[in-house]
């Protein structure tokens, strides 16, 4: 199958990148100020006990040796132990990654559902009211920092109106998390058929996802508008109009599908911005995701956790880029042919 071969090829091509990421994070974490041995030996420790801790952690070995043992561990699926929590890094990430992913994906979904129709409308009626509204939303979206949007939404919808639950994590304490299948509460609760939990987790995730959505809206709407304008002035749209095709067919079957090629590129970029913005949103909403985990790990000089976080992100990006490339091939036959 050509598709599978392409995937395999792309994954192989990603290996050097991943190795580079591993190496750079390894060096960078070591170069950062802060000595984990001092940190974990505690404030009362003397030089001897610090040296003991350092030896126990393997930090007295040379950097190449440490790196080799880290890579060897990775190859065996061992990402190391988080010193601040005492658990395996893979376990920590496995628990928190779905929370972050659920938030990011829902934020992206909200952004797409609003931004693409908005961009299409704005492009079909340049300089109309819709176009101006689009421009205002886009400008507001990019100029508001996410933590500010988040705080504003919490202030209005939780504090003032009381419509939203307290911004404290994924679920109220009185609910029990659904059985884990995907780790996404919205999906898992539906699988379990537990609509009450679904409603509760939706209520919790809505504001932080909306925060991310507002942030992601701007680039998607702008790109959709630009790409649609470009496509609408193309020769084949003129042909479609000269053939008397219905407005709907011209706009969606002919124009939007072609415009989506550029929008898809933007989506990839927006998704990576969102992962960055996540860190702040997770803090504001006490969301138990990997962003807040990474910040804590960084402060504590928790090497394995920081490295694990960056590696997880890198893997996510590789997967994301692969997905986008595959989607390109779905939309564009020219790319299918080139593969």
């Amino acid at each position: 199958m050509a598709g599978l071969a392409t995937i395999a090829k792309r994954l192989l091509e990603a290996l050097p990148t991943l190795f580079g990421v591993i190496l750079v994070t390894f060096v960078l974490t070591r170069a950062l100020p802060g000595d984990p041995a001092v940190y974990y030996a505690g404030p009362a420790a003397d030089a001897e006990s610090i040296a003991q801790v350092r030896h126990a952690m393997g930090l007295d070995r040379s950097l190449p040796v440490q790196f080799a043992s880290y890579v060897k561990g990775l190859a065996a699926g061992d990402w190391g132990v988080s010193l601040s929590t005492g658990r395996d890094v893979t376990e920590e990430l496995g628990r928190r990654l779905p929370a972050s992913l659920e938030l990011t994906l829902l934020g992206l979904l909200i952004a797409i559902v609003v931004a693409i129709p908005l961009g299409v409308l704005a492009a079909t009626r340049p300089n109309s009211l819709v176009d101006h509204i689009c421009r205002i939303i886009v400008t507001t979206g990019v100029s508001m920092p996410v933590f500010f949007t988040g705080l504003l939404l919490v202030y209005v919808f939780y504090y003032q109106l009381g419509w939203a639950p307290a911004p404290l994590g994924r679920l109220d304490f009185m609910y029990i998390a659904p059985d884990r299948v995907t780790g996404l509460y919205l999906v898992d609760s539906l699988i379990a058929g537990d609509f009450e939990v679904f409603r509760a987790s939706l209520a919790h995730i809505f504001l932080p996802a909306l925060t991310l959505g507002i942030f992601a809206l701007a680039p998607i709407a702008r790109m959709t508008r630009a790409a649609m304008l470009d496509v609408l002035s193309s020769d084949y749209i003129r042909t479609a109009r000269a053939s008397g095709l219905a407005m709907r067919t011209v706009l969606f079957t002919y124009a939007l599908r072609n415009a989506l090629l550029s929008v898809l590129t933007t989506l990839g970029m927006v998704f990576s911005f969102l992962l960055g913005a996540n860190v702040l949103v997770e803090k504001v909403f006490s969301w138990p995701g990997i962003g807040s985990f990474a910040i804590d790990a960084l402060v504590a000089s928790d090497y394995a956790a920081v490295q694990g976080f960056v590696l997880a992100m890198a893997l996510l990006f590789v997967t994301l880029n692969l997905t986008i490339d595959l989607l390109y091939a779905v939309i564009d036959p020219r790319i299918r042919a080139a593969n």
Partner: protein
Amino acid sequence: MSALLEVSDLSVEFRSRAGTVHVLDRIALSVARGETLAVVGESGSGKSVAAFSIMGILDDAARIPNGRVDFGGMDLLKAKRRELDEVRGREMAMIFQSPRTALNPIRKVGHQIEDVLRRHGPVARGDAKRRAIEALEQVRIPDPGRRYDAYPFELSGGLCQRVMIAIALCCKPRLLIADEPTTGLDVTTQATIMDLLAELGRETGLATLLITHDLALASQYADRIAVMHAGQVVETAPTASLFAAPRHPYTAGLMGATPTSTTALDALESVPGRIPPLNADLPVCRFAERCSRRVAECDDPGPRFDADAQAPDHYFACRRPL
């Protein structure tokens, strides 16, 4: 002979940063049923704009201050988009230059034909595919069943233009507007495409409005020729009559600039000057600046069209004709 398409008194302006551009100045054209009218002129003479205004696919910046486009009794300029869409693709169709970009790059050509078929009539699902393949067969595309699944990038320019013709003719229109249909194709392909158009025209009684800068091509395929210059129709006549005795100096100039099998390249003359900028104040005769026969009365306002006393159906817009 009643005209199928009758364009009268049509002006088109474009608003641009450099002021209003008067692209068409009260032009008149008519095409009878089954007839081929060629509109000839150099680049920028407004040929394509004329075609686009007939089809209602002008750019948003365009404005039509006056004129009438009568197609089978319907005024296309006054028609609503919905009414126009009933006519476009079904009653009249258009093919364009650069066929590669005129087709949707990410849609199978077969589906692009089906889109038009479905739009203009109830077609059963399986029937649409059969009729699309028939349409491909009609334009002599070899192996039409396989080409149905092809994307434009998989086809040569000549095949793409055939697909365009198939799209245009699949609903059996009465009028085909062909805007420089052979530009960008190699010479042998040009000839086969033109022959195909002529043949299909004869078979189906199709009227054709052929837009070209190539006078030789026009003389070969058109029943009548309208010569345009700077947004004005300067002369219109049956092909034989026009070539026998051109009355407008510009037509004569174009003929002098067109190579034939018997003239040497050195003997070719170019029309002096160039099309005047259309955003400035324009003289009554837009060719006056380039014309060696200009006299004072050329600048008088008033009608300029005159009929040739000897040749029927031969009109020219010149106060001092040849």
